[in-house]
């Protein structure tokens, strides 16, 4: 390892340790004012009464603060629930805003300093580690040692990384109150961009974007000499930074709805939720444009672009989940399961999620237009189930946390309903395919090994069959790693695109369809 890489790695680790330490800093002191400020009108009196014993008490950690909160709050809710007084139950979770407001810590006082020490150092270290990779080598395939690596082949480092990611997602989704230090730390950045305070989602979005940028640089280095990989990486870096991160924040600054113009239903599963529709309809021309834009992407954009280019136009060029998978997740792409069995599970699961998303959305829309007369609050229940099981557990915890265990496209392959929709178009009505170059395949297996979607590319290549698979995200890595120049991503006429009985050229004795 070169000196600069060592320095980079060192800085990254310092940043990471700082990031993991920061949540434990500071003290928490609740007051009546803070409770009144951070609770809804209807809950104010009750919350003020319930939490009164905590006022003025200084708690030394988020754990003791949360314990006290639960001690005072939970019995009330439990009581109401046991009496089935559902309308008395306080369903809102006030732990995050109250913990955030109660915090007294050096991080809150000097957010930039701590930001620099944690995320800043980690990003800088990552950059230093990446930006000169392979500088002394000619351009080429840089897969040396991947299966000898603890990080990339499910060794201790991989397990540790996966566990950390899973832990982070669990805390982020269900226990954000423990992250308030980190949220305060990025507060100034949020105020700079949107004018508003930071939430845990802003923190997440910021880390997510930086991770894609830093690891995108790694992609540029790794695939030096491969223009397709470079452009596609630049594209996901751009769409994440501009469309997913900056534009929505700036929209908020301009008093417009928060909106990611490249997020498409049903991946964006709450697009048709009643509160979203209300937001669009109440935001004048801009809101109407967002609504129409979103619908046009679904009914025109997806089929049209997928017809011409395959689903790759979205999955490996635009999508944020794809962006993370293709940059941060790239070191783990070889861990996807290539078995026929996995493929079978994949088809069942991903299409089930699609059906679930469609059914839920149709019910929501019908319910909305019937003025909630049809199903009442049932759709809300559906939303929370979907949001928990699919939106949080599947897409987040499993989708990213499982990178080091099952490869970088677990969510995209098994779970994403938009990928399922794009895939159906790609399979049945598209000009996209991966062409195999006549009889040149030597069955080496690089293509299959490095397919993040677990497609057994070699199965097709060695029999001279063009690869038409709904799951293919067109990352182009099979083509890159092929040592014999056999694979090429192509858009072409639909005729003969799907041929189950190909003939390998080169043998004039016989023509056997295998």
């Amino acid at each position, binding site marked *: 390892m070169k000196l600069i890489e060592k320095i980079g790695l060192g800085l990254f680790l310092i940043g990471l340790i700082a990031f993991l330490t920061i949540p434990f800093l500071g003290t928490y002191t609740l007051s009546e004012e803070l409770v009144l400020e951070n609770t809804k009108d209807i809950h104010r009196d009750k919350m003020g009464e319930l939490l009164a014993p905590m006022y003025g008490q200084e708690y030394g950690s988020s754990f003791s603060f949360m314990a006290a909160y639960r001690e005072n709050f939970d019995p009330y809710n439990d009581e109401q629930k046991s009496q089935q007084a559902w309308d008395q139950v306080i369903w809102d979770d006030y732990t995050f805003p109250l913990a955030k407001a109660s915090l007294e810590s050096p991080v809150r006082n000097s957010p930039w300093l701590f930001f620099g020490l944690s995320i800043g150092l980690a990003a800088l270290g990552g950059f230093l580690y990446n930006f000169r990779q392979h500088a002394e080598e000619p351009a080429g395939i840089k897969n040396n*040692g991947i299966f000898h690596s603890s990080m990339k082949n499910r060794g201790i480092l991989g397990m540790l990384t996966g566990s950390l990611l899973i832990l982070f997602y669990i805390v982020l989704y269900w226990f954000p109150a423990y992250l308030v230090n980190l949220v305060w730390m990025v507060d100034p950045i949020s105020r700079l961009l949107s004018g508003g305070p930071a939430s845990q989602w802003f923190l997440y979005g910021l880390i997510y974007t930086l991770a894609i940028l830093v690891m995108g640089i790694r992609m540029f280095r790794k695939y030096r000499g*491969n223009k397709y990989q470079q452009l596609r990486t630049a594209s996901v870096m751009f769409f994440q930074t501009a469309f997913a991160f900056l534009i929505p924040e700036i929209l908020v600054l301009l008093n417009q709805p928060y909106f990611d113009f490249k997020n498409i239903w049903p991946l964006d599963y709450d697009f048709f939720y009643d509160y979203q529709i209300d937001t669009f309809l109440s935001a004048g021309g801009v809101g109407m444009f967002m609504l129409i834009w979103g619908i046009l992407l679904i009914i025109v954009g997806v089929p049209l672009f997928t017809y011409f280019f395959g689903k790759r136009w979205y999955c490996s060029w635009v999508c944020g989940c794809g962006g993370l998978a293709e940059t941060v997740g790239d070191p783990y792409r070889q861990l996807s399961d290539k078995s026929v069995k996995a493929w079978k599970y994949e088809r069942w699961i991903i299409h089930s999620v699609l059906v679930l998303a469609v059914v839920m959305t149709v019910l929501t829309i019908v319910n909305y237009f019937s003025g909630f007369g049809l199903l009442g609050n049932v759709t809300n229940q559906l939303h929370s189930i979907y949001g928990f099981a699919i939106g949080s557990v599947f897409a987040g915890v499993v989708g990213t946390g499982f990178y080091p265990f099952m490869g970088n496209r677990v969510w995209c392959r098994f779970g994403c309903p938009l990928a399922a929709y794009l895939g159906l178009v790609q399979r049945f009505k598209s000009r996209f395919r991966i062409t195999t170059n006549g009889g040149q395949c030597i*069955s*080496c297996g*690089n293509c299959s090994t490095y397919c993040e979607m677990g497609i057994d590319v070699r199965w097709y290549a060695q029999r001279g069959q063009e690869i038409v698979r709904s799951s293919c995200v067109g990352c182009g890595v099979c083509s890159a790693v092929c040592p014999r120049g056999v694979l090429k991503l192509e858009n072409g006429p639909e005729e003969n695109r799907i041929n189950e009985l190909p003939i390998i050229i*080169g*043998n004039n004795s016989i023509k*056997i369809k295998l």
Partner: protein
Amino acid sequence: MNQSRHIVIIGNGISGITCARTLRKLDSDVRITVISGESKYFFSRTALMYVYMGHMKFEHTQPYEDHFWDKNRIELKQAWVEKVDFDGKCLIFSEGEKLAYDTLVIATGSKPNQFGWPGEDLKGVQGLYSKQDLEAMEANTREGVSRAVIVGGGLIGIEMAEMLAYKQIPVTFLVREKRFWGNILPREEAELVGRHIREHHIDLRLDTELKEILPDSAGRVRAVITSKGEEIPCQFVGLTAGVSASVDFLRNTELEVNRGVKVDSFFQTNIPDVFSIGDCAEFETAPAPDRKNIEQVWYTGRMHGETLAYNLCKKPVPYRPGVWFNSAKFLDIEYQTYGVVPAGFDPEKVRSFYWEHSSGKICFRMLMDSDGAILGVNNFGFRLRHEFFDKAIRERWSGEKVIAQLQRANFDPEFFAPNYIEIQKAFLAQFGGSFQPARRSFVQKLFGAKV
């Protein structure tokens, strides 16, 4: 077809396995057994280097999942065949066990050449062909190797050099020819590869042969002596001076064996119901004017396998290979060839067009006969379409027509530099022609794809 007919294939390489799979495709009743001592399951020999370098695990080199063989009722037996009782139609394994056959297919492949060099059997000296060779190489290079010497400038030699480079073991590469792979590649291509080898800090010694391998007191290699009298200290020697048929267990039997098992164009040996395919088979007459009597590449092995399977199930047809093609990768530079491009050619009879990129790492050669019809192409550092050249060469297109349509032959990924435009310009400058070079597309201009 007789239901009880038992076809036994010795060898589970690409020839034997293709034969077995094709047999099953054509006949759902025949009993098929594939025997290999090397490994139970078929794997891609060409991928062994990637296992060593950590690109893949061994299981990734297996093109079919384990359940595939059961499902297709192809019986696999892992055992070494000691000898064949041709009269009794029965195999005898090294463990003493026997297996009866009705039809026997010998597809035992090759083994690395040894030319009787002094010290060639020392510890730390080996070839690279089998799974066992890979395991030996992993053991031999695990530690204590401060330099390795590779003998023989072919495709396995360069693979071995790349493998050792992964372990950061300095390599001295002894090549008998004056240029790398000089008996196959024309001068410019061979020099291009030679430059790239040196770019990877491999000590390439052309025009140099191995004379002797010297042992240390423990019977391990400590140095080699070259034909130039130089002693090179090393702890590992890779012998990669070609391969020869692995048929020792068949010699001195009633089966006719020369360099390989002698077969006619139907893969029939001198004994009824015994056939041989792949690189252990030696044709009485070469299958085509541009072919050798022993065909040693992956693709020919596959064609042998499918043709023999057809012959065993249907009306026998002679083996007739089509237009020659091959490919390889020299470190980072990919190579493909279609048709006939020999290392040396008579400039009186053959016209050669050669283009090389200023980087010195991409090139294209096309040979034409005296009428200007295409004979073959070599391309390095970029990819060309097999189907295009198979057709062009079969139909004897003029060189000009081939170059005029070169854009269609391009197989590089999208956004890559359009080398074909420069090739077209160079061809027009050298040979003239009535076509216009292709223009960069809008997308190519937009993303700055240029040569």
